[in-house]
């Protein structure tokens, strides 16, 4: 798997020299360098000015935002450090003549600056008691956010005024050992960035009301930096390099993922969050087979996760389970997957006669029947409203997975073994997906997705193959379910409602249908955001619904679009350019990774 974002699909297919500027911005064209430098300088100045005239809620946020420049000029941390870095980068990129695609890079940096300024300014204004908090109050002034915002706007204006250059494509080839070294360094940096973003702001909740704002601000800074790297063509180049050493990249990436507990994210809380993300990522990959590859919309998919979880709970030796036997975890996983797969085949069997929207409704009906039955404690197997509590943790050779472990001098938090297990599970699921996608079966699924009648005419036995999609997808969800039951120790019908199915579907769509990184990325976003934005938890579902509408409206192909799928979905979108030939190799890297 590579984490390379896809090339900017909105980049117009234009000649290599910037097009003549047009419109109202044209007047600014001769002075773009001045504008860009001024923008960067304002961002740095804004970072050093005070941002609020008092300490908010007597808490640590905004970190030293009342800092006076003359008292401690170098004590710049947190979002102000991000601002300084982005601002200096803007100035350097604008002034060094050798940098290509200046406008594009500065635009990304400028948007990052704007995001930081707006997020922190808005937070201070709202939580600190009105606009007074960011302008002037109590005889002192605090307009750091306004200055930084002006800087960001200037940078973006200066970047776009002269027209945007296309993203350059680099074709450097280094010796193999150098490329391997480069990939290791890049992936370790990636790990550090992920850990930093994950832990930024700390654990959300009542005790830490700043978590959401700090997290979003960090996300804005990282987004701006990544956008700039992408605009410079470097990310695309790294993607091509990692594609050249695909097996090596996958191994390094796996090792890096397993090293997450060694970073700042290595606490019990983050291990639990990461394990939950892993469960939903594995399930989303299973759903991706059904929806993304075979094109069969399933609105009751979370039921298979539930079936796997309830099977595992009943075979775990928990006091509340009806079946009084306790089996070793690997056996339980297999049984859960098989039973979920059988149900998958049953739910999939109507596909022989029903298509499209009607199939979506049939799967929804199956999902509702599952939830209702589980709620009513069907056959005494689901515990009903009492759930099945006290499921014992997985243990191997006397080591319980719920305990912290010590390896030599390193103390690892509890839950780390679960994390390792889920990373390996997700990796295995990815491997299954990647190989299936490129197999005869996967091509048959894609053919059915594109045109079922044509596929049948080509000699594909559509019936069994569609049921197979449901069966395999459900088995993957069942595997994840068995893990889920042991990790959370409680399985209740409430975790498998219709909304969870919609969330999983949204994860697949947000990430990009039919791609592996897409499903994982989508699941991560949809399950990290609510964890971080606890103070908005009242609006969580409202925002989720609106986001779903906006995604389908403006980016139906998802964040990591699949090649076929993108061509299919973007064809009707207004203003969508034809795919650039130059982007093809990177697409292969994004779409076909993981095998």
């Amino acid at each position: 798997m590579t984490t390379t974002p896809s090339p900017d699909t909105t980049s117009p297919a234009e000649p290599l020299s910037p097009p003549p500027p047009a419109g109202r911005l044209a007047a600014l064209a001769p002075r773009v360098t001045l504008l860009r430098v001024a923008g960067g300088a304002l961002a740095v100045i804004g970072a050093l000015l005070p941002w609020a005239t008092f300490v908010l809620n007597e808490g640590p946020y905004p970190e030293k935002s009342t800092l006076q420049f003359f008292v401690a000029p170098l004590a710049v941390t947190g979002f102000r450090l991000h601002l300084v870095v982005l601002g200096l980068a803007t100035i350097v990129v604008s002034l060094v003549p050798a940098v290509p695609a200046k406008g594009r890079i500065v635009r990304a940096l400028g948007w990052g600056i704007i995001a930081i300024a707006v997020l922190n300014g808005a937070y201070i204004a709202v939580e600190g008691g009105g606009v007074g908090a960011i302008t002037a109050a109590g005889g002192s002034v605090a307009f750091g956010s306004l200055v930084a915002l002006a800087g960001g706007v200037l940078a973006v204006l200066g970047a776009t005024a002269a027209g945007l250059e296309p993203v350059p494509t680099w074709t450097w080839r280094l010796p193999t050992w150098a490329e391997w070294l480069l990939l290791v360094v890049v992936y370790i940096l990636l790990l550090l960035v992920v850990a930093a973003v994950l832990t930024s702001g700390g654990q959300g909740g009542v005790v830490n009301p700043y978590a959401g704002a700090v997290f979003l601000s960090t996300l804005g800074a990282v987004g701006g930096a990544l956008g700039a790297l992408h605009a410079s063509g470097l990310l695309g180049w790294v993607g091509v390099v990692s594609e050249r050493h695909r097996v090596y990249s996958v191994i390094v990436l796996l090792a890096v993922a397993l090293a997450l507990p060694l970073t700042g994210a290595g606490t019990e809380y983050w291990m639990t969050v990461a394990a939950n993300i892993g469960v939903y990522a594995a399930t989303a990959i299973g759903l991706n087979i059904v929806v993304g590859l075979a094109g069969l919309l399933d609105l009751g998919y979370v039921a298979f996760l539930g079936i796997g979880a309830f099977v595992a709970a009943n075979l775990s030796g928990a006091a509340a389970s009806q079946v009084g036997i306790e089996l070793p975890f690997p056996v339980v996983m297999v049984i859960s997957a098989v039973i979920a797969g059988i149900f998958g085949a049953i739910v999939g069997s109507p596909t022989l006669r029903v298509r499209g929207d009607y199939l979506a409704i049939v799967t929804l009906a199956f999902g509702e029947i599952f939830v209702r039955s589980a709620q009513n404690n069907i056959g005494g197997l689901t515990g009903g409203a009492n759930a099945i509590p006290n499921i014992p943790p997985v243990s191997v050779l006397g080591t319980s997975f719920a305990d912290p472990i010590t390896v030599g001098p390193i103390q690892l938090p509890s839950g780390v073994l679960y994390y390792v297990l889920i990373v390996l599970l997700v990796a295995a699921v990815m491997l299954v997906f990647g190989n299936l996608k490129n197999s005869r079966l996967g091509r048959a699924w894609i053919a059915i997705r594109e045109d079922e009648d044509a596929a049948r005419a080509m000699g594909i036995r559509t019936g069994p193959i569609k049921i197979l999609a449901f069966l395999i997808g459900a088995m993957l969800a069942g595997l994840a379910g068995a893990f889920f039951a042991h990790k959370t120790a409680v399985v209740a019908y409430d975790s498998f409602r219709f909304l969870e199915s919609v969330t999983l579907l949204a994860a697949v769509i947000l990430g990009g249908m039919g791609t592996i990184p897409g499903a994982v990325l989508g699941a991560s976003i949809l399950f990290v955001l609510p964890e971080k934005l606890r103070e908005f938890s009242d609006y969580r579902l409202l925002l989720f619904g609106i986001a779903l509408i906006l995604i389908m409206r403006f980016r139906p192909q998802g964040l990591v679009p699949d090649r076929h799928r993108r061509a299919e979905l973007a064809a009707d979108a207004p203003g969508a350019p034809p795919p650039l030939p130059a982007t093809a190799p990177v697409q292969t890297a994004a779409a076909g990774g993981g095998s």
Partner: protein
Amino acid sequence: MGLLESFSTQLTQCFGSTSPPVFVFLQQIINGLVLGSLIGLIALGYTMVYGIIQLINFAHGEVFMVGAYGGLATFTYLLPTFAAREWYIALPLVLLGGALISVLVAVAMERFAYRPLRNAPRLAPLITALGVSVALQEAVRVFYPNATAALPFPNIFVPGSLSFSVGGGDIAIKYSGILLLVVSLVLAIALQIFVDGSRMGRAMRATAQDRDVARLMGINPDRVIVLTFVIGGALAGIGGVLYGGYLNNINIDMGFQTGIFAFTAAVLGGIGSIRGAVIGGLLIGLVKSLGGQCLPGGTAYDYVWIFVVLIVVLVFRPQGFFGETERVRA
């Protein structure tokens, strides 16, 4: 185990030696017909929208829910107390308020969520509809005062119920239930006459058959589609208010479930058929009330039987009772 036990108990309750007297059945049938007429009323919205733009408007159930809250808001905040005292003043005003809100919501969702996706692949509008459904439900929960729990709904019709004794027991129908039944049937008949007889109705049928040819004939499809959403929204809003008055209790979850039932009814009757939607609705109502009485699991499983009916119909007769085979697009 538990399931088998309840299976046999339930069956003996209906058909065995401990079979209940006839009036229990009659009462259940009446309950089922009242619920069914509501489901039919909402199913009209599904069937018309699907007939014209081939979209399963998941959010239609939420339009019904919003209508109920709109009616409640009208009663609570707009009606002066003297008007609220007399049902013949309150009822039309509350109905108007509920229908108005529902129409606004339905038209807005068509304009801003569905119209931009008119030519997108089939999956996109369906997922958008899911998003609209979640967003509407949450918007009411967050912004309507105290909507996190179920809210009491005022009595907006003659209180009390009509009761008579049959087969050794008493049967009761709430007057508000009779109102719901009558209004639903009258509205359905009026809609049938409108679609069959009026110029605009003809334009709707033409658009449903072939949107491009209809455009060539001088019909503005956009206007027809908006009209469809207006009619569907108004019917759902009226249904929401009447249902609130019947149960005296509304909550934000009522839309999703009733919406799925209504969709089942629309499919059962045949998508695109007005008669079919009403008859399908009545049948679904009967399945729910009699299934809760007679089938294994009792009322805890009555929803399950509706979903079973839905699956069986979609698999074995997706064109429904009155649908035309070539109309089925799925």
